[in-house]
């Protein structure tokens, strides 16, 4: 009995300092980030909705940078960072954010903040035998072991970006908020982006490394997307029809997105056989050297960035062709109905009490998924990814009742096609068109529906009525145009490097 007790004490004597040592290392690499955010009110686009707050985690990198998930920074009005999950909270700012990749860098301008922090080392890829992750809960560092499960083609909420999403089984509770995943060498092998029950999804180190490489470039090149839709080629009859000889392989290209890398190079009805040297199987999978069988759409992001050129082999009209594809990024703003505005406010126009705005997914989401007006839902499903020249659908979202707009009080969700004979592709077009009434009338034409296809307003009293209605309903601003695409952010912290 005595011997057993002594053995146990010796074991604890050896292992406890080890745990303490492990904990102490990550304590200095993991910070708590608190964000106050405020979304725009999609129904009243001149104002914001009620603010909320989020708490998540940041990983300390070299150069006084903190790596976080970009999603959590959306609509931030205040960003604060805490060391050791306790006050004081230090104001932080965004150095760089890529919402598509869901990665961002923030910093604290007070250089002393980083004095007792230590940058984490990033592994080149998911390598290791045992894994753990950690987060802060009530001022205590919580660590948990993680067990590799499987890899899927994972996509963020923001469209056009996929990466190998690595599933781990873990005992950690409430994770998926940017916790670091570490190997036995305490190197960062991934960032948790999602957790459901005991399964968490990790964004792998390769993507983080590629992101940091891109951030270090003079101009951030962004991640690239192929921009193709495809169908399987499992059936022998289809393969034969497409001119393939031998075993079934490759996928049939159904279409290409106008803003995508493949547009004009890979063509509809091509059988895509190889991409960047990887053979594509009949279900669109290739063999990733570490993660196994994954969707070929991951290849353009696999250590590549926009600007790189990758090779492709297609079977077209029975002949194999070798192609070169210069990789391009597809910004969500290329879509007819953008999936996100990336912190930009909704463009709108208040005209004679009628509220017009550009249709985007944040507006549709504000309806709740089950309550989206049917015609708008059809537009979203069918036309969202139609692209070209920053065109948008303009909708009449609401009417603020007044004598001036009598007869139109109940109108909403109409798609505007023309104003005063001018085709409308943006709020800016609309603002310009209202300057040129037709014979003292403003004629707003809408896509045919069971409602008005033509809304007619008195042009002579239009401006006065607009001002009066704005005053009645306390509407501060009449117009907001879409901002031009922003220039690349500076990737260098303003403060001097202290380490």
């Amino acid at each position, binding site marked *: 009995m005595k011997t057993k007790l002594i053995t146990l004490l010796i074991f604890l004597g050896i292992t406890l300092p080890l745990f303490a040592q492990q904990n102490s290392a990550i304590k200095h690499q993991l910070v708590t980030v608190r964000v106050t955010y405020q979304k725009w009110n999609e129904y009243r686009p001149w104002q914001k909705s009620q603010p909320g707050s989020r708490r998540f985690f940041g990983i300390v990198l070299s150069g006084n940078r903190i790596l976080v998930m970009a999603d959590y920074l959306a609509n931030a009005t205040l960003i604060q960072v805490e060391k050791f999950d306790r006050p004081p909270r230090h104001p932080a700012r965004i150095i760089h954010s890529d919402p598509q990749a869901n990665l961002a860098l923030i910093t604290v301008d007070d250089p002393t903040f980083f004095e007792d922090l230590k940058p984490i080392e990033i592994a080149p890829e998911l390598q290791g035998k045992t894994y753990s992750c950690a987060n802060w809960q009530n001022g205590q560092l919580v660590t948990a072991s993680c067990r590799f499960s499987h890899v899927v083609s994972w996509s963020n909420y923001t469209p056009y970006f996929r990466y190998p999403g690595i599933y781990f089984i873990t005992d950690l509770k409430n994770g998926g908020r940017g916790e670091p995943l570490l190997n036995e060498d305490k190197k960062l092998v991934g960032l948790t982006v999602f957790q459901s029950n005991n399964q968490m999804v990790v964004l792998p180190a390769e993507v983080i490394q590629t992101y940091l490489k891109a951030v270090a470039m003079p101009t951030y090149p962004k991640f690239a997307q192929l921009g193709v839709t495809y169908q399987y080629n499992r059936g022998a*009859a289809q393969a*034969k*029809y497409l001119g393939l000889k031998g075993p079934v392989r490759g996928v049939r290209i159904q279409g290409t997105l106008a803003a995508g890398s493949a547009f004009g190079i890979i063509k509809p009805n091509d059988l895509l056989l190889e991409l960047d040297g990887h053979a594509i199987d009949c279900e669109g999978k290739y063999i990733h050297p570490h993660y196994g069988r994954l969707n070929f759409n991951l290849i353009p992001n696999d250590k590549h960035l926009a600007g790189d050129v990758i090779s492709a082999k297609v079977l077209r009209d029975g002949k194999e062709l070798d192609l070169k594809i210069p990789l391009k990024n597809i910004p969500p703003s290329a879509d007819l109905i953008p999936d996100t505005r990336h912190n930009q406010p909704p463009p709108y126009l208040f005209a004679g009490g009628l509220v017009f705005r550009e249709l985007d997914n944040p507006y549709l989401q504000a309806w709740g998924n089950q309550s989206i007006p049917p015609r708008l839902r*059809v537009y979203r499903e069918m036309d969202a990814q139609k692209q070209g020249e920053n065109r948008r659908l303009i909708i009449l979202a609401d009417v603020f009742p007044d004598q001036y707009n*009598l*007869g139109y009080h109940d109108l909403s969700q109409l798609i505007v096609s023309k104003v005063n004979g001018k085709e409308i592709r943006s709020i800016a077009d609309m603002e310009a068109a209202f300057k040129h009434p037709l014979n003292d*009338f403003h004629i707003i034409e809408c896509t*045919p529906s069971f409602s008005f296809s033509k*809304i007619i307003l008195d042009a002579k009293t239009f401006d006065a009525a607009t001002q009066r209605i704005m005053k009645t309903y306390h509407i501060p601003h009449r117009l907001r145009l879409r901002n031009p695409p922003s220039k690349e952010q500076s990737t260098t912290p303003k403060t001097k490097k202290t380490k």
Partner: protein
Amino acid sequence: MKRWIQISWYVGSVLLLISSVQAQTNKIEESVVKIVNQYNVFNWYSPWDSGSTGKGTGSGFVVSNKRILTNAHVVNNSAIILVFFHNDPNPYPAKIKTIAHDCDLAVLELLNPKRLDHVPALEIAGLPKIRSQVFTYGYPAGGKRLSITRGVVSRIEMQQYVHTGVDQHLIVQTDAAINPGNSGGPVIQNGKVVGVAFEGNRQLENMGLFIPTTIIKHLFKDLEDGEYNGYPELGLITVAMENPAARAYAKMKPEESGIRIEMVVKKCSARDTLQKGDIITHINGNPIANDGTFEWNGLRLKYDFIVDQLQKGESVDVQIIRDGKSLTKSVKLNHYNPTKFQAQLFEQRPKYYIYAGLVFVPLNRNTLMTYGSTWFKNINQELLYEFYFRPIEKDELVDVPHVIQIRRLDDAVNAEESRFLYQIVDEVNGKKISTLKDLAEAFEQCTAPQHIIHFKYDNAITVLDRKKADAAHVKILKNYAIPKDRNL
């Protein structure tokens, strides 16, 4: 003595009145029937199946010429209809003489009409007044005996009839309880029929709806030639003209009112006479207000009611403003209803065509509904677009049928080939597809080594090896116990 005579006269009169009311009530009770419908509903997802059977009950009442009037939804999809009379335990088989789905009414006849020899036919009266008292008679759920409820008429207006989901006619709202089983029963006022109970609204309290006698009379008049034609439609989409600028733009005088035509639907009555942009100011002399209503017997009703009172072949005079000028156009009414193809279908054996395990059906409300209760939100939105929205955007497509692939019965010949379900077929073997007949011809006339099915959206294709598919076709039918490969 004189006084005694006077008292006796009063007492006699009261007794006579009571007995008369009693007799009237008894007469109504004798004429109200319970209808049991043993139905057989076809399955549009497995369109070759014989259908699922069940039993539904409703009410009805005897009208002139030994006919029984009830709701269409009480007797639709019937295999056998049994009629039960008050205090008579015997069932009397009946058949449908006319079923008018567009106004949710049906006329039945007993197989042995002698049972009706001594049953009084209820008299059809006019429209009841708002606030007047009505009684509903019928056999609602909750018991087996005749039930009578009382209420007042609270609203009269045009509303959509739920049965087809696309037709709109006059309804009367009452607070008399109208529950499942009441459907088809008479609504009585002063011993005469003022309506047919047909709908309730579970989201509202004490709200029942009945079909007024204007609709019943329209049905009987329509049937005078022995054939039911249905309601004529002007075929217009119109909007209100309440905005002063809209009226000024249309060059309307201050004293003029009306509505603007936004669309004249293909093949409908007004297609050749009225135009988009016309302002309708009068129909058959009735001034149309800027909100699209007109005055009728102290009520303000939507202008559609004017046409609703007319029959196929009759004409309406429509006074319009076109380019600032007032014109009168005579519109001869036809009964073509472009929205009919959007209505739910009843009694019809589903149409389908199967080739090598691929199951094709027409695009209609019934096939859309096979997707599940949330079909409207979750089905491929292209189908909704083609079905509901595109015909409005491009009216030449208003009645163009489509074929969709609804299922695949897996077999070695098709299981590995690409599968696209609930998708519209655009072409098969280079032939444009609009109907199942087109589809059958495209498959059966093909001599190429492969069948190529091209879907309308997303450049999707399915390819089958023709010889192997031909060889597998009969075997697949046998494996899945399908008696016939088509009902075109």
